[in-house]
Structure formats: structure tokens, C-alpha cells
């Protein structure tokens, strides 16, 4: 007799079994084998053959070992070996599930296509928007420890000046005394004309203090940083170039460092090249040191940034700057000041992102909702199918499949669907990012380009898996809750459990709630945009071209500037298609805004009262006709208003009405500067309509106009009103300017209409995107309610048949179906209105002329949504009444 016990023991040896247990098993199996051996011998089978048969039976595919390994608790945890049989088995099972899932997807091609399209679009939109949010809000700025950087400014809201930049004197004062900040730098954007080596070009530059790059924590990639002593007049004829300018204009020649280039006709030595991607502030192409002057108070134009000292916050810095500002005046005027100055400090990152933050977050929330709605739709489709698959699942349960096994299979199916959707989504996202990229880059200067980087791809993958679990979980869990007995007994049609139907309903309700939120959000924005477009800006933007030139000193001093101005206007006026030409220091909606304090004679403010502020513009005769601003009283400037003639000015209606109830300011005298200013008085000769500047949503500032001829300034906008398409005139204008001075670049050429619409850009894009998300949501929700109602009808065919057979009128059955659908819709609408109220509050800051809780928008869109839902429910309802009672009953 073979040693069966030893035989079994040797098979168990490799298993992580408790020794006593292994003994027991060996004993039990050995008994069995012995008995069977006897039996085989008894049947006349030769001993050797019997032994061989039994050995084979025992060895059979290692079933014994594999099964026992799975069953028995190991004496100690087995070492984790990759590809160990248990895992291999699990993986094999998984592979089976994947194959099964793919087969199912192919089998239900219609459902798969619908789900994939929905998912692909929703995930794609999310990925694209996330890539924008990632580059704009999340990716750290290209500075060392960017979180420690703040930007700060003074504020005087009582004068209508929420933001007041500092003059050099303040900056020098702060820099010497601040403890909350380890370093402070100041800068101011400037335009510079590069000549020599090719065509004259206007460049965006920045005047910066010598420690600018050190405060930001970046150093030139080539050459050196600015030196402290270069912050002095005469010593500051050095520049650092951006990587972009260096490559574009100088062919990335490292030899340029140490050589001089000509900027505004002045030879300036290049000392360094910044690394790629560094263009702060804005899109600066080159930097030049400011000759700082501790006495200089006449240009309140410097932006200030600081690096917080360890342990200090932005609020600490703001308090300290306010105190230091008071101290500055005390030192200067000898009069104590306490708590009079106010300052604001915010993280630099927050400031740089500016106005796009709220719209971006709103859009991200919106696109997330669209995905949720899409997932709810797919979950509903799958729930419906899970209902239909009830029998298949029940059979598998009967045959011993564990609930975990079934959940796994259903989840694998939904994850496969999600992954395929995610792949489509990535493709959609690539397209969307390509379309959105230029728009974002144009509006957010620190974003150089938009791309689907690994973080975005990872986010998309995460979102995909989450979506798959989200829409797969409900059907999967429902799958395991099937009542085997009922399902097996019922007819061929599957009947989803009551719980499944409740889930269907919950999904529909939330879909409608989310859709309504989006619709109302989009509706509010749309109304704001319409209101903005109806705002009268105070000028007529159509058919006006604006172009900027700067006459560089020292070649142009006041007489040369005046001469240039008197020569260029008639030349331009003589061009065909030109109706009016004028010059101004700043055209409406152009960059920059020169604001000045002023005093009206006879209306001087008391010393304790704030000095009023107005936007100041220098203009040539014919300016108001050229931009289309109405003259309300008095006269325009004309050729009498020249150098040496009495000083005259024109005020706008808002300023005039502030001091004269009838708005008649003609004859009044106004002086720029504060009470102690020694500026000459100017006589008001006219009143014009108020104009808005930069932002249609903002009330117009007070305006003061003076003749350019009386105060020649070298930087000006040319304003040309045309009778033809203004864009076509740009080359002719450039030609006339170059004819007067070949070294003058004409830049920032745009139409007034473009300038106004650029100011609405973020608005318009937000609006368009939100509206399309809302429509997508509406469509998905309509499909959702249609699907659920149709399913409901198909499941109740018998019932309707019986009702009709018993004499119910078709109208009754229709009402039954419609009533059920519309109850869900109304629940969704109610929740959606509450949600929309919350969303509207978030939108509040970007709404214009419409209240966040505007009843018209809320009411109209809720009604529209309900109407769409009614149609979506009506179609299946009509089918319900088309049921032939006989046919329906035959199914029973």
C-alpha cells in the first residue's frame, strides 16, 4: 500500500498552513485515498495502475493546493510575491470581466455610443477647463517662494480712488523702514522704441528698482542682475532683456551682453538676459533701472511688491505700510498724522489673476455639474439595463457567484465605459485647449501657453474613474439586491427592484435641479451682457481707428512735439475715407488713465475734506467730433487755444453737475492739484457728455480736458473717424507718420469697437461657455426624463393595458404617465431654484444691471425647463395610450 499520508503531506508542504491543521487534512485525505485504492484493487485494477490513477487525481491541476491556499488562514502572512497564484487567479477573473464587459459594450452599441458621446464631451470640457484653472490659478508663479510675495497699494475710497500707487519718495521711505517685508521693489510699465538693427519697434518695458529681480527671487540666465548704484540718473543706462526679445530681435546671440542697443535714441548697455517665461510685470520685454529719488512726489505711478519676512502676513504688511505713510507726511510736514493713510496688501498671485478668477471658478463649477448630469444619465441607462439583466444576475447568484463577484463585474463594465469616455474626453480636451489657449493667454499675462500637461491628464484620469464608479455603483449595488425568487419567477422582462426605480427618480430630480442652476446662471449673465451692451459709453465707437505714437526725448522737446502735432493732423485728415482726426493723451478704452486732483474756484473743499479727482486728458481741436462725444454747452477747443493764449478747459457733465445744479460750468475756473498747488487757473469754455473708460459697468469718472497745444506731451493716441472700414486705414496712417519721422513706430493699433469689446471679453467668453454648458445640461436632463419615463411606460404596459381594457380613457393613462414625470421635474425645479440662488450670489460681483435673484430670469427659465420636460414626458406618455389592451394582456 502506498504511503498516502506522506504523499498528501508533501503536497501540503508548500502551503502556509498551521501544522496541526495540515496533519488533520493529511489524515482525512489519506483515509479517503486508502479506501479508494482498496476499491480500485477490488475492481480488479492492477496495483500500479490504481496507484497511478489516484496520484493523478490528487495532483489534478494543483486544485488541492490552490483551493486550500485560498481557504485556510495562513499561519503567518505569506510574503507578497508578484504573480502569486491567488493574485493571478484574481487577475484572470478580472481579465474575464473585462472581456465580458467589452462584449457587452459591443452588444449594446446604441447605448454605448450614447454614453460615450455624453461622457466624452463632459469629461473633455472638464479637462479643458481644468487645464485653464490649473495654469491660471493653481500653477505657481515663476518666482521663488511665490506665496511669500505680496503687492500693496494705498487706497482712498472717499476720493473715488480705490487704488493709489506710490511715488518714488514713498517707496524709498518704505524700503528703508519696513520690518514686515524682507525686500520691497517698485516698478512702472513704460514703452520704449528700439531703433537700429532693423525696423523701429515699440517695446513693452518696465522701469524697476535695482532689487526687483532679487525680491522676486529670479536672476538673469545670462549676464548679471542690476547693481544698487545703477538706481541713479546717468548710471541707469543699462537693460536686461527678456528671453523672447533676445531670441526674436537678437537671434539669441550671447554676445549681445555687454553691447549697447538704442532705446528711445539713447545707447543702453545690455547687462543680462532673463530666463524663458519671465515677463513680469505683464508681458515686459526689457527692464531698465529707475533712478530713485527720495524727494520725488510727482508721479504716483509705481506699483510696489514685497517679499514677506518670515512669520509675517499680508495684513501685517498693509498695516505697516499705512503707518509708514502717515510717518512720511509727519516727517515732511511736521504735522502729526495718525491712522489717516490706508493701504491694501494682497498676495501677488491673487492680484495677477485679477478679474478672471470668479468667472473661471463659476465655469469650473458649471462644467462639473454638466458631468454630474451626464453621469446621472448614464447611471439611469445602466440601471435600466441592470433591471433588464436581473435574470442573468439572478442565475449567476443561484449558481454560486458571490455578491462581491457580481459587483466587481458590473463595476468593471462601467469603468470600461468610463475609460473609453475619458479617452474621447482627452481628444475633446486637446481640441478645446487649442481653441481656448490664445484667449486665455491674451487675458492672463503670466500664462505663456495652455497645454494638457501630465497634471491635467492625471486629473482627467481621476475624474474618469470617479465618474465610472459614480454611474456604475448604483446599478452594481442594485444588481446584488435582486430578489432571486421574484426575478426567476417573473416573465422574461426584468423588473427592477423598487429601490432601483427610486434611484432613477432621484437622478432625474437632481439632473433637473442642476440644469436649472446652470440655466439661471447663464440667463443672469446673458442679461448682464445685454445691459452692458446697452450702456451709452459717451462716445460712438463705430468706424474709429486708434493708434499710438511716442515722440522720444531728447530729440523731441516741447517745440518739436507741437510742430509734429500741427503737421500730422492735416496729413491724416487728407487721407481718403477720413472724416475727422484728433490727438489725445489717452483715447477711450485705451491703456492708462491719468487721474489728477483738482479744485474749483469758489468750491474749494475744507481742509478736512478729500480733494476731488478727475481723469485728465489733453486733446486737439476736433477730438469730440472724432470720438463722437456730444458737446452740451459752450464751445470745443479750436485754433485760438494755443501756447501763450489764455488757458482753457472743458469739463464733462458729471463734474459740471457736481458743482452746478443746471450743469452749466462754462466760465468757471478750475485748477489741477491740491489746495496748496501753484498750478494756474483754467477757464471752462465747454461741457461735454460723460464717457466711460475701460469698463462699461463702471460709472463715468469726472473728466477734465485741456488743449494739447497748450501743454505738449510726446505720447499720444491718434483718433481717426472714417467713412470706410477703419482697419484698412492703418497702413496709410503708418505711412504718414513715417513720412514725418522714419524712426517712429506706430503701435497698439485698434478700432474703438475692438477696445470696447475687449473690455467685455471675459464677460462674453464666460457667457458663451456658460450658456453652452447650460444648454448641454438641459438636453441631457431632457434625455434623462425621457429615458426614465419611457422605461416606466414599458414596464407598466400590462397595467396600462388592463386599465384601458377596464374602460380607462387614453387621457387618464396619459395623465398618469405625465403626472409621474412632472412630479419629478417639479421637485427638481424647486431644488434647482434654491441652488441657483446660491450660485447667483457667487455670480453677484460680475452681474450688471440685474439682481442676483431676478424673478423674471428665475421664473422664465424654470418655466422653460418645465416645458421641455413636459415634451420629453409626453412622447412616452402617448406611447402608453397606444398600447393595445389585447397585446398587452397577452404578455401576461
Amino acid at each position, binding site marked *: 500500500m502506498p504511503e498516502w499520508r506522506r504523499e498528501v503531506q508533501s503536497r501540503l508542504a508548500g502551503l502556509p498552513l498551521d501544522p496541526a491543521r495540515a496533519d*488533520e*487534512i493529511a489524515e*482525512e*485525505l489519506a*483515509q*479517503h*485515498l486508502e*479506501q*479508494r485504492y482498496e476499491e480500485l484493487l477490488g475492481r480488479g485494477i492492477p496495483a500500479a495502475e490504481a496507484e497511478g490513477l*489516484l496520484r493523478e*487525481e*490528487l*495532483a*489534478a491541476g494543483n*486544485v*488541492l493546493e490552490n*483551493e*486550500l491556499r485560498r*481557504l*485556510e488562514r495562513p499561519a503567518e502572512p505569506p510574503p507578497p510575491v508578484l504573480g502569486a497564484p491567488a493574485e493571478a487567479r484574481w487577475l484572470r477573473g478580472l481579465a*474575464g470581466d473585462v472581456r465580458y464587459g467589452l462584449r457587452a459594450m459591443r452588444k449594446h452599441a446604441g447605448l454605448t455610443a450614447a454614453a460615450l458621446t455624453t461622457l466624452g464631451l463632459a469629461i473633455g470640457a472638464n479637462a479643458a477647463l481644468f487645464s485653464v484653472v490649473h495654469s491660471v490659478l493653481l500653477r505657481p508663479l515663476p518666482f521663488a517662494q511665490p506665496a511669500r510675495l505680496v503687492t500693496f497699494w494705498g487706497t482712498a475710497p472717499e476720493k473715488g480712488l480705490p487704488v493709489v500707487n506710490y511715488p518714488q519718495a514713498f517707496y524709498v521711505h518704505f524700503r528703508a523702514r519696513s520690518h514686515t517685508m524682507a525686500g520691497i521693489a517698485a516698478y512702472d510699465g513704460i514703452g520704449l522704441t528700439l531703433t537700429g538693427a532693423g525696423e523701429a519697434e515699440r517695446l513693452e518695458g518696465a522701469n524697476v528698482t535695482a532689487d526687483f529681480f532679487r525680491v522676486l527671487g529670479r536672476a538673469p540666465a545670462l549676464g548679471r542682475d542690476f547693481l544698487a548704484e545703477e538706481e541713479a540718473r546717468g548710471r541707469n543706462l543699462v537693460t536686461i532683456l527678456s528671453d523672447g526679445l533676445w531670441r526674436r530681435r537678437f537671434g539669441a546671440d550671447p554676445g549681445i551682453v555687454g553691447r549697447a542697443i538704442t532705446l528711445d535714441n539713447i545707447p543702453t548697455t545690455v547687462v543680462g538676459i532673463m530666463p524663458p517665461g519671465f515677463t513680469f510685470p505683464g508681458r515686459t520685454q526689457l527692464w531698465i533701472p529707475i533712478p530713485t529719488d527720495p524727494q520725488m512726489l510727482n508721479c504716483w505711478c509705481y506699483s510696489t511688491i514685497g517679499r514677506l519676512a518670515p512669520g509675517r502676513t499680508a495684513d501685517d504688511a498693509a498695516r505697516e505700510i499705512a503707518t509708514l505713510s502717515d510717518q512720511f507726511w509727519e516727517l515732511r510736514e511736521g504735522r502729526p498724522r495718525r491712522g489717516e493713510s490706508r493701504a491694501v496688501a494682497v498676495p501677488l498671485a491673487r492680484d495677477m489673476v485679477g478679474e478672471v478668477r470668479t468667472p473661471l471658478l463659476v465655469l469650473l463649477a458649471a462644467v462639473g455639474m454638466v458631468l454630474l448630469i451626464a453621469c446621472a444619465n448614464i447611471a439611469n441607462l445602466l440601471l435600466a439595463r441592470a433591471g433588464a439583466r436581473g435574470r*442573468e444576475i*439572478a*442565475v*449567476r447568484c*443561484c*449558481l*454560486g*457567484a458571490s455578491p462581491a463577484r457580481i459587483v466587481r463585474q458590473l463595476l468593471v463594465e462601467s469603468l470600461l465605459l468610463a475609460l473609453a469616455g475619458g479617452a474621447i474626453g482627452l481628444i475633446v480636451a486637446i481640441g478645446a485647449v487649442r481653441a481656448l489657449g490664445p484667449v486665455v493667454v491674451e487675458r492672463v499675462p503670466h500664462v505663456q501657453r495652455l497645454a494638457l500637461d501630465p497634471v491635467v491628464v492625471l486629473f482627467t484620469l481621476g475624474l474618469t474613474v470617479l465618474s465610472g464608479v459614480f454611474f456604475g455603483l448604483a446599478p452594481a449595488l442594485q444588481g446584488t439586491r435582486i430578489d*432571486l*425568487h421574484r426575478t*426567476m*419567477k417573473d416573465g422574461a422582462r426584468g423588473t427592477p427592484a423598487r429601490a432601483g426605480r427610486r434611484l432613477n427618480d432621484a437622478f432625474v430630480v437632481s439632473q433637473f435641479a442642476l440644469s436649472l442652476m446652470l440655466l439661471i446662471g447663464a440667463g443672469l449673465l446673458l442679461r448682464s451682457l445685454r445691459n452692458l451692451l446697452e450702456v451709452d459709453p459717451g462716445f460712438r465707437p463705430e468706424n474709429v481707428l486708434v493708434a499710438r505714437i511716442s515722440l522720444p526725448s531728447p530729440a523731441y522737446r516741447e517745440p518739436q512735439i507741437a510742430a509734429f502735432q500741427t503737421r500730422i493732423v492735416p496729413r491724416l485728415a487728407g487721407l481718403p475715407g477720413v472724416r475727422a482726426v484728433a490727438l489725445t493723451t489717452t483715447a477711450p478704452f485705451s491703456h492708462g488713465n491719468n487721474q489728477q486732483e483738482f479744485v474749483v474756484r469758489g468750491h474749494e473743499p475744507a481742509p478736512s475734506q478729500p480733494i476731488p479727482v478727475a481723469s485728465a486728458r489733453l486733446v486737439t481741436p476736433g477730438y469730440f467730433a472724432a470720438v463722437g462725444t456730444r458737446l452740451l454747452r459752450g464751445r470745443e477747443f479750436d485754433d485760438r487755444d494755443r501756447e501763450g493764449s489764455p488757458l482753457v478747459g472743458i469739463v464733462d457733465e458729471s463734474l459740471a453737475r457736481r458743482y452746478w445744479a443746471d450743469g452749466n460750468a462754462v466760465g468757471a475756473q478750475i485748477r489741477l492739484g491740491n489746495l496748496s498747488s501753484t498750478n494756474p487757473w483754467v477757464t471752462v469754455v465747454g461741457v461735454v457728455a460723460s464717457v466711460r473708460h475701460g469698463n462699461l459697468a463702471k460709472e463715468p469718472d469726472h473728466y477734465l480736458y485741456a488743449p494739447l497745444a497748450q501743454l505738449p506731451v510726446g505720447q499720444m493716441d491718434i483718433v481717426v473717424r472714417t467713412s470706410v472700414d477703419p482697419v484698412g486705414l492703418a497702413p496709410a496712417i503708418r505711412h504718414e507718420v513715417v513720412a514725418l519721422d522714419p524712426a517712429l513706430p506706430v503701435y497698439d493699433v485698434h478700432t474703438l469697437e475692438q477696445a470696447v469689446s475687449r473690455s467685455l471679453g471675459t464677460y462674453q467668453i464666460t457667457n458663451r461657455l456658460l450658456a453652452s454648458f447650460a444648454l448641454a445640461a438641459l438636453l441631457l436632463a431632457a434625455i434623462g426624463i425621457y429615458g426614465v419615463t419611457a422605461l416606466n411606460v414599458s414596464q407598466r404596459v400590462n397595467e396600462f393595458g388592463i386599465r384601458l381594457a377596464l374602460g380607462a380613457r387614453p387621457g387618464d393613462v396619459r395623465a398618469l404617465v405625465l403626472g409621474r414625470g412632472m412630479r419629478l421635474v417639479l421637485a427638481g425645479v424647486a431644488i434647482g431654484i434654491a441652488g441657483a440662488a446660491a450660485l447667483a450670489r457667487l455670480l453677484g460681483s460680475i452681474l450688471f444691471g440685474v439682481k442676483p435673484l431676478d424673478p423674471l430670469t428665475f421664473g422664465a427659465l424654470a418655466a422653460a425647463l418645465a416645458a421641455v420636460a413636459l415634451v420629453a414626458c409626453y412622447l412616452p406618455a402617448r406611447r402608453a395610450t397606444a398600447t393595445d389592451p389585447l397585446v398587452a394582456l397577452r404578455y401576461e
Partner: protein
Amino acid sequence: MTSTDLKKGSAELLVLSLVEREPRHGYELSKLIESRSRGAVRFNVASLYPLLYRLEKRGWLQGRWVEKAGQRRRRYYRVTAEGRSVLKARRRSWSEFVAAVRRIVGPDYA
């Protein structure tokens, strides 16, 4: 549905029904399955015992070493209360399944 599921589920049903009335040991079970199915179903030693252990672990069976006079001790398996109710449910759904299959396939072939 895979054939593993099928076999696993039905094997459990077979074992549970055979120990429903009296406790039996492994060899006896294998003989009974073979003889009652007229040789159509056979369990070999390598798959039978893991199955018994699994049912035991689930608490559907209870195995106990029993010594009888003049014999070696043997392990007998009897059904637990839980096993009994599982058996009842399985038996019901199995007959429904068979009936369902029969309705589809037709009495001649089932």
C-alpha cells in the same frame, strides 16, 4: 456565466443535500454522488475536500472527528441550521432554474 460558477454552485447544493438527513464522511459523500448520479458526476479527492472545508468555513457544515469501536477515527460532516436554510433557498431557485431551462429547451431535451 462561467462553467466554474455553475459547477461550484451545484456542487455545494449536492453536498448540502447529501448531509441533510445524516452526517457523512468525505469518502461516503463521493461514493454517494457518483452512485446517485449513476456515474455522471464525480468529485475527486482534490476538489471534494476543499469544497467541504469551504462550506465548513461558511458555517453551513460542521465537521467532527468521530471514533467508532474498532475503527480509526473519521471526520463526519453534518449540516448546520444556517446550512439548512441555504439549502432550502438553493433548492428552490435551482428547481426554478431547471424549470425555466426546461420551458425554453423543451421537456424532451432537459
